[in-house]
């Protein structure tokens, strides 16, 4: 009986250890050209561009962190949208469970595929800062949007949601938003 119980305990231990092992990365999207795919290892990344032919990692795609990011919540699945010519990757994060102000924010980044002289493929960010913030600031400047007086503790939030790529990959249709969140006003 003791032997049986010992065997049972060992087996359960092995089983729980096996269950703790991480699963492989999730294939989020495959480039229309079939050259590469974007994989993500749940639950917190990284987001990787991998070669479809040999699985080699080509690049890591990093969305710049939000200024308000507390980092103590689960990270949502990033959503990559690859342009029809496979030269651009738009990535957005939707984290509805994040605490405010991050729940109002929709961080995004745009990456461009480049090729170095030796033929190596790279992916570089199209904007140095978060794309959603850059998009909003561009609109703010172009459209001369008014800035209301904000409480001193207000933090600006930005979002850029993907709608579609144009067929020629020259245009990216987005829904861009901006606002402010104040802890004192929200109570």
């Amino acid at each position, binding site marked *: 009986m003791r032997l049986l*119980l010992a065997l049972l305990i060992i087996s359960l231990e092995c089983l729980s250890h096996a269950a703790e092992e991480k699963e492989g990365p999730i294939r989020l999207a495959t480039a229309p050209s079939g050259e590469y795919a974007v994989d993500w290892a749940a639950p917190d990344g990284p987001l990787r561009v991998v070669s479809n032919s040999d699985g080699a990692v080509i690049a890591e795609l990093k969305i710049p962190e939000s200024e308000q990011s507390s980092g103590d919540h689960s990270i949502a699945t990033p959503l990559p949208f690859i342009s029809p010519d496979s030269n651009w990757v738009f990535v957005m994060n939707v984290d509805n469970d994040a605490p405010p102000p991050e729940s109002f924010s929709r961080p995004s980044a745009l990456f461009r595929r480049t090729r170095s002289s030796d033929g190596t493929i790279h992916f570089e960010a199209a904007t140095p800062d978060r794309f959603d913030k850059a998009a909003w600031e561009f609109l703010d400047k172009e459209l001369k949007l008014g800035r209301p007086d904000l409480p001193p503790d207000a933090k600006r939030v930005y979002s850029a949601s993907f709608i579609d790529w144009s067929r020629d990959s020259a245009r990216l249709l987005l829904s861009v938003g901006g606002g402010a969140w104040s802890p004192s006003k929200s109570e």
Partner: protein
Amino acid sequence: MIRNRRLHYFTFAKKHFAVWVTLGLCLLIGEGILDEPCRLAAATDEPEEFHGPPPHPGYPDPFEIGYILFDTFSPNKQFGIIYPNRLLEESPDFIVDLKHSRILALLETGEPYFEGKNHGDLAAHWAPNSSAAVIENSGKWEPIGLLLVELKDGKVILQTDLLDSLNKIFSPAIAKAQHSRVADSAIGELDITGVKWKTGKSLQVEIKCEGSTNPKGFEEESSWYGELTAVWDVAQRKLVRHQLARVSFHAAGRKEQ
């Protein structure tokens, strides 16, 4: 690819065969010692995954990242339901063919269920011959939908919301007690307490539920309560029997009648 969360164990099982053999031996010898792992082992025959149509080229695959396979399948294990996770919470629920990895139909419910929905829940009661299912999409006070889904030759042929038929029984009874118009008399809370399939000459489903008009118990409002047992005949597409029991009425400011 959508995997049932409970069935993740069985993906591990393939990779850790030796562990499972050892565990299986232990469980065989010590039968009755552990109940839970026995149930896990018994579920290995259940379908493990579902994958919908291919995604738009270059775009994320919603069936890879956004949908969850509900863990109640048809008795023949061919049909199931998938619902979105929080990422796709505005998206619909679907009835799927697990055997052929096909989406059969969108679940015709006003507010689809999604993972972690506030006051929401999903329940599926499949007919023994897998030709129909009553799918309950729960809400805070009453179901958002109580859908009878009928299948034939691997296709969804009809979806009927049974709530309308149940309400048509409750409303006149409430109107009579309250001396109000039928159109103005409706239950405020409805709990489905039982769904039971009956096979015989024709396929029928018996639904037991409790209805009441004043779920918050406001004293200035009248309170009607009743327990309904209704039988729906699938072939006739109508309720063929119903009975209201334990009916009580408490007029506003008056004692119970």
